[in-house]
């Protein structure tokens, strides 16, 4: 804008000067010789004035160029036809009129394009929204005993984001045929010193390994029976947890937690009513890792969940202890398409269970402490980037009558269309004793993820 105005002024003045000079031969003879000197003097004064204007214009032009983002070749001013020579600033041949230093030029360019940058860099009210992911998990099942079913298992929405420099939060809302539930909603510190993190809210308590996996993240279709029965599905808990990474060269992580209860489907403890401190469940876990070779690693964990008094069971104590072992073979150069994982968890439950039914003669309920145990163990191979076959073995005793047990074996094949979509075929043979019952089940699972997807350390 400035530049075109200056050019226009310059052109105008130069044209006027040209007209004056061209007109000169015609006007001079009309003058008397006495006035000739005066006329020449006046002409010189005009020339001097024009020279000053020209100089002033050049200075303004320099200024405009300094303020312009780039210095395109200046449009040549109308040549001052027969104009008298005016003093031009010395300029080396071929050199630009102005050569600012690089920093100055950068500053000028940025200053000039800032409005365009600001316009392009729009802001939205939703800009600070958390990352959002959506997961669909659906299964077709066929059972010899329970017939067939298309089972919509869940549609899950996950949110995660930093709260401030000190903590982050995440939430998982799960919709199932039974309704909508807040599966997890937790705050986790991110900047505590000395290797500590604190987690609070509703989350999956750090008991063992697969109890902290969401259903759709499990390596097989169904949660192992021992986790279902002893923990109550996922280790969902309302409470607080402190984790500490030991400051030594070997990986050792310690967790302590206190919760209303552990287990999403653990119906024996009411999550909603207030309770004595002795009715909380307290957790301790230690987890370590051995790098046996570059390709072979072993995770070992031990967890204990202790409830001093279980209200629904006559305020008797309950202790659930578990050991988990995970051996991973991952040849480094073929990590994406070769390897295997062997995972095992053994759980032992020790708790007071109602014994003989009260009678008039013996009105007090008699409790007996009973121990029951169970395990699962699976081996999964990675044959290609797509095909992961595996075999799962399970054994679990009944809480009340440990002599009764269930065992199952499940070969399965997971087919990864991509990192975000998976099909799984599984056959399960289940046997339960006293009375002996068997069942054969077939599953076809289809799981997909859209949106934000995080590779978490917990689910590795």
């Amino acid at each position, binding site marked *: 804008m400035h530049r075109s105005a200056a050019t226009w002024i310059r052109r105008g003045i130069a044209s006027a000067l040209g007209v004056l000079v061209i007109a000169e031969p015609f006007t001079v003879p009309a003058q008397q010789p006495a006035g000739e000197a005066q006329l020449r003097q006046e002409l010189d004064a005009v020339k001097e004035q024009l020279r000053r204007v020209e100089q002033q214009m050049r200075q303004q032009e320099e200024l405009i160029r300094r303020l312009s983002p780039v210095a395109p070749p200046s449009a040549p001013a109308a040549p001052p036809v027969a104009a008298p020579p005016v003093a031009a600033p010395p300029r080396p041949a071929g050199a630009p009129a102005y050569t600012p230093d690089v920093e100055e030029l950068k500053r000028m360019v940025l200053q000039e394009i800032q409005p365009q940058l600001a316009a392009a860099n729009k802001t939205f009210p939703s800009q600070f929204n958390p990352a959002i992911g959506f997961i669909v998990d659906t299964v077709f099942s066929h059972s010899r005993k329970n017939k067939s079913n298309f089972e919509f298992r869940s549609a899950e929405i996950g949110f995660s984001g930093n709260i401030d420099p000190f903590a982050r939060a995440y939430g998982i809302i799960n919709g199932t045929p039974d309704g909508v539930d807040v599966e997890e909603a937790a705050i986790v510190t*991110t*900047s*505590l*010193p000395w*290797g*500590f*993190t604190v987690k609070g809210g509703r989350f999956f308590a750090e008991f063992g390994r697969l109890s902290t996996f969401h259903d759709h993240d499990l390596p097989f279709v169904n949660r192992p029976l021992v986790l279902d029965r002893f923990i109550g599905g996922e280790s969902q808990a309302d409470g607080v947890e402190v984790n500490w*990474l030991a*400051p*030594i*060269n*070997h*990986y050792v*992580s310690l967790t302590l937690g206190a919760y209303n209860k552990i287990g999403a489907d653990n119906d024996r403890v009411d999550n909603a009513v207030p309770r004595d401190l002795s009715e909380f469940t307290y957790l301790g876990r230690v987890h*370590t*890792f051995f*790098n046996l070779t*570059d390709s072979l*690693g072993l*995770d070992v964990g031990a967890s204990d969940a202790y409830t001093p008094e279980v209200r629904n069971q006559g305020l008797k104590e309950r202790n659930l202890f578990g050991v988990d072992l995970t051996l*991973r073979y*991952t040849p*480094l*150069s*073929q*990590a*994406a*398409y070769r390897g295997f994982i062997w995972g095992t968890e053994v759980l032992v439950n020790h708790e007071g269970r109602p014994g003989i039914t009260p009678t008039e003669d013996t009105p007090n309920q008699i409790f007996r402490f009973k121990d029951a145990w169970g395990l699962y163990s699976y081996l999964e191979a990675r044959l*290609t*980037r*797509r095909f992961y076959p595996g075999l799962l073995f399970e054994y679990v005793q009944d809480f009340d009558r440990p002599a009764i047990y269930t065992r199952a074996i499940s070969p399965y094949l997971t087919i990864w269309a*991509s*990192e*975000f979509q998976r099909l799984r075929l599984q056959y399960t043979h289940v046997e339960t004793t006293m009375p002996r019952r068997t069942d054969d089940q077939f599953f076809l699972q289809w799981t997909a993820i*859209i949106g934000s997807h*995080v*590779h*978490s*350390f917990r689910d*590795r």
Partner: protein
Amino acid sequence: MRRMLLPVLAILVALLPADVGAAKKIRVVSTIPDLADLTRQVGGDLVDVTSLATGVEDVHAVPMKPSYAVLLNRADVVILMGLEMEHAFLPALLEASRNPKIQRDQPAYIDCSVYVTPLEVPTRLDRSLGDIHPMGNPHFNLDPGNGKNIVRAIVDGLSRNYPEHAATFKKNGDAYNAKLDEAIARWQREAAPLKGKKFVTYHPDLIYFAERFGMVQFGTIEIRPGIDPTPAHVADLIERMRQNKVDVVVREVHYPAGLATTIAKATGAKLVELPAMVRGVPEAKDYISLIDYNVRTLVNAVKGG
């Protein structure tokens, strides 16, 4: 009391770490060995560098070992490629490390992509395009010109954290980049036969190299980045490669050999195996020998060697 003092002091001295009193080195954890080598060039004796990846891995599938969390817990700085190259393992490991000073956006989080002009920046973000990187293709380490940009970012990053050594970092960085300049001039001469040669890779990780040396990426064995090929894609690729006379099939050493071999045989293209990182093959001992190896191998292939 005095009698006890001496033994107690002796025990305390014995428990002190061996390096107490010695100048403490800057503990650097890099994500890939290329960055480890370049950091050593810049930091010299001032740094003690460990790389998470060994060089043979697919950088998008580096295992998340808990022992890496321990390394990161002790790190003074972390040096990474950036452009989300390490998205599959680094964010989770950083969280598990409990080390607040190396978290993203902290001064000790040194992103080496800051001076790189990214290629293949997607104009549309959609998973139907594969496992794409929103900020552009992150495999810029294979272009030695970007090697210089990495060095510059490392000099900046280390100087930001240790301004007292900034002059040393700058001097070392400039000296190494001068060495790289000489090597680049040599590689440009040696790579003259590569100009205009068409190639297919398993994954699009050679595009910065191709841009530098004038090669033409014809396609990838993967159907999309991170998505394994289907039989229909392979058949189509073979057909198009035949029609367009593609010269070379590149198998990055961390991808399966079978399919690349089949495609090379079916099309008559020369099959070469290239590392994507330093130490990906024994000859690629450091950054310069990595580029040396890749240039030499490809030139030999197109010359029919």
